[in-house]
């Protein structure tokens, strides 16, 4: 241990393939909204897809967002063999009625093959505030669609969000 260097964050290392018995056994972390949570109940169906178009069956997906009252909600699930996981939560709403920023969910992504986690963000299609959102404005316009969840046709309370690690539809990741 070198005590002369300034304090610097400990290096990240991959979550590896064998995390599930340690990190994702608690599937109640997929039910983010309690009976007293305000807001419109939604289901977020997330899929993680690798550079060959194959589902990633061993990713950890964390959701960090606020409910419409500003209370912080946290969810964490592992993906299944289809690369998917689904969270029951509430539509985050906007921080303030006049907010220019669009409703969103922050995501943190871990998996074998990633030496560091990835940060990304999910927005909701059709939200007029997408035009004025400061974070989206920092994203090249031709890549913004990678951050926008779509409503499932037959189930209006379900939103689908595909995370692509590589390729033409590679999701935008943030350096925070």
């Amino acid at each position: 241990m070198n005590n002369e260097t300034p304090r610097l964050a400990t290096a990240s290392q991959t979550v590896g393939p064998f995390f599930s018995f340690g990190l994702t056994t608690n599937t109640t972390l997929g039910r983010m909204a309690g009976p007293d949570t305000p807001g419109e109940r939604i289901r977020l169906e997330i899929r993680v897809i690798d550079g060959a178009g194959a589902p990633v069956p061993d990713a950890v997906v964390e959701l960090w967002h606020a409910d419409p009252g500003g209370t912080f909600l946290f969810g964490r699930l592992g993906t299944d063999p289809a690369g998917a996981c689904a969270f029951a939560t509430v539509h985050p709403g906007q921080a303030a009625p006049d907010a220019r920023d669009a409703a969103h969910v922050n995501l943190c992504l871990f998996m074998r093959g990633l030496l560091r986690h990835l940060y990304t963000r999910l927005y909701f299609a059709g939200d007029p505030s997408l035009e004025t959102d400061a974070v989206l404005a920092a994203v090249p316009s031709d890549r913004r669609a990678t951050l926008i969840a779509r409503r499932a046709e037959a189930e209006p309370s379900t939103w689908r969000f595909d995370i692509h690690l590589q390729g033409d539809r590679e999701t935008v990741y943030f350096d925070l």
Partner: protein
Amino acid sequence: MSAQSNRPVEGSQPPLIYPPYRSGALRSPTRPLIALTGNFSDFGAPVYGYRAIGEADADLTRQHAGEPLGERIIVSGRVVDEDDRPVRQTLVELWQANAAGRYRHAVDDHPAPLDPNFTGAGRTITDDDGRYRFVTIKPGAYPWRNHPNAWRPAHIHFSLFGESFLSRLVTQMYFPGDPLFAFDPMFQSVRDESARQRLVSQLDLALTEPEWALGYRFDIVLRGRNSTPFEARA
């Protein structure tokens, strides 16, 4: 010290693309990350699970009817941020292979025995000085298929939240003097020597309980609130 702490140190974090670690080939993003200054979202840390933590959660040798096989050890340390402030009351989760180098996981097909008395997962909360302490079994090395005759040095996985979305950290703790370090692409992905050495725990006789278990110290530093993004440190 805090004036220096925002300085990025190249190689103190692993890059997203590190070809010797082959699992990343189809999983590492290939386009530049979008740099954001200012608040992404100033969330505090999640507080889930605090009440549900029981005493055996921090003692991996007491989670079953009998005692696990292997070398009992104490793993303890202090969690601080880059401004040297203790990170209080934060969740620390760990998971690991057993003494034979086998994980209790369906996908682990290493032909080494499972131990019916060892799960290999624990969690605890740091105290008001940022300290945590686990009792566990020293994990074994195990083979993997990254390259011919590839073996992982013995390690324990750690997950921490800290105080915000930005301080999130998943890492691995290693043991001093492991001869496999030179051949391990995960360890070597951290190119700065001092950052790499900070992943290695230290034998600590002050943590050791005589006639019972050796103690290993593993201190962890989490990103501060306004510090340099990781990409500048890779």
